[in-house]
């Protein structure tokens, strides 16, 4: 029993309140507590701040090779904004090279707002690849 319930019982024991009043107070307390618990559960999770990339490879030797990268999501956003500065002429060249490499993507069609939205949704992404000798994890924290 929590502190408030104990106080009600003490008041009852001391004769400050009647049994009916104590019952009403305890009922009110019980009604209040599930609401508080539900409120705590519905509280939104903290927004992730970092993108983590963890790679471990044991195929190369005795000691595993490890890569551990933590990128602030804010840095990704800033990088995305920088792409808007790429001159159109350079963008055309990039598109041509991408198409020649078999990746027919028109980067000029990608708008900063779309990329921002993509970053906002990154916290839902979890990549977990567990191979025989290597392991890759990508997630937000």
């Amino acid at each position, binding site marked *: 029993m929590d502190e408030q319930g104990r106080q009600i019982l003490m008041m009852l024991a001391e004769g400050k309140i009647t049994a009916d009043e104590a019952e009403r107070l305890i009922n009110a307390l019980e009604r209040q507590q599930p609401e508080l618990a539900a409120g705590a559960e519905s509280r939104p999770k903290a927004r992730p701040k970092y993108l983590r990339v963890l790679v471990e490879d044991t195929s190369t030797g005795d000691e595993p090779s490890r890569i*551990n990268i933590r990128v602030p999501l804010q*840095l990704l956003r800033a990088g995305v904004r920088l792409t808007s500065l790429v001159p159109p002429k350079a963008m055309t060249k990039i598109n041509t090279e991408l198409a020649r490499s078999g990746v027919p993507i028109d980067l000029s069609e990608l708008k900063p707002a779309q990329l921002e939205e993509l970053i906002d949704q990154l916290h839902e992404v979890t990549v977990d690849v567990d191979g025989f000798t290597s392991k890759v994890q990508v997630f937000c924290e």
Partner: protein
Amino acid sequence: MPQLVTVRYRRPDGRWRRLFIPVLLVLVVLLMLSPLLVLAALGGLIVGRVYGYRVSFLGALGGLGQVLWALPGARLEIDDGQTAFLIRVF
């Protein structure tokens, strides 16, 4: 804005070495080199215009500022055989 960058790397004898780089000190050095940096930026702008690559100077400056401000918390650690280093930005 980042305050401190720590670089930790493994030397060939297997011992680790750690460097603490205060960003303020780097800014002081950049300030001292600012006349050269201004010349380099102007040169870059002129070359860009000659070859048809028009970049907004203010936009680039703002973008770089945003990248710099977003750096704290970044961490890069690579450990692969002889090569091992860790860079952290605070």
